[in-house]
């Protein structure tokens, strides 16, 4: 798309005319999770800075980390991270020319979304039970 685009006809590909399919969903999710992870990196940096500031500063915020809200935040962050990781590995397999057949690619897209959700549930369960038991 040029900066002086004045053609009124629809451009292709654009979201309105495309039938949603799994690889399209996984592509959009990869971008969205990537941008979300950049924001998560800012939060992680602040978390480490709070740690470095010493126990007094940490205690002011640690109530939030160890609340149900903290567990929900961990679940969302870890789900996004695991999805982007698995799909990123798939992208590098794709770069080698493998797993590109439409049926395989679509099936893997769904499988990766489900796998990320399951791993996020499992890791959150392990974290909550280990923190609760401490």
């Amino acid at each position, binding site marked *: 798309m040029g900066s002086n685009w004045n053609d009124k006809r629809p451009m292709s590909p654009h979201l309105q005319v495309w039938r949603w399919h799994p690889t399209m969903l996984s592509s959009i999710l990869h971008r969205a999770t*990537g941008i979300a992870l*950049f924001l998560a990196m800012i939060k*992680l*940096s602040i978390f480490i800075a709070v*740690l*470095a500031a010493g126990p007094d500063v940490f205690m002011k915020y640690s109530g939030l980390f160890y609340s149900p809200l903290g567990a929900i935040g961990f679940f969302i962050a870890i789900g996004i991270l695991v999805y982007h990781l698995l799909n*990123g590995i798939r992208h*590098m397999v794709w770069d080698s020319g493998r797993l590109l057949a439409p049926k395989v690619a679509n099936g893997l897209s769904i499988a990766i979304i489900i796998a990320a959700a399951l791993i996020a549930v499992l890791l959150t369960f392990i974290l909550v039970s*280990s923190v609760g038991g401490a």
Partner: protein
Amino acid sequence: MATDFRTPMSRVKGHGSAQDGTHHYIAHRVSAIILAITVPLLIWGIMAAAPGGFDGFVEYIESTFGALTLLTFITAAFYHGRSGLTESILDYFQGGKRMALLLLSTLVSIGFWLLAVLSILRIWLGA
């Protein structure tokens, strides 16, 4: 045999490849490989440290393995994240907005990378 099919108009308008995508492509994947190794280590480290609260996290960063994992992860993640954001910004924005967002993503990446690295070193050296 003709090898150049570009029209004079396309040349005037400056359309076509920028001729410098290869470095971006390879660097994005190299940082991805570093992240694929460090992310599982980091998830494991954070989950093992979390039950210990403040002491647990500090102990993790005080260990050389923890500090190295975190430093490598933070560096690769901000490099990879800025690289991916650049790709998205170039796809959706033009002109001044594009320049402003590219500059902002660079400054934010470097700023928070420095904050994280200095904080890790402060904890690690204080051990």
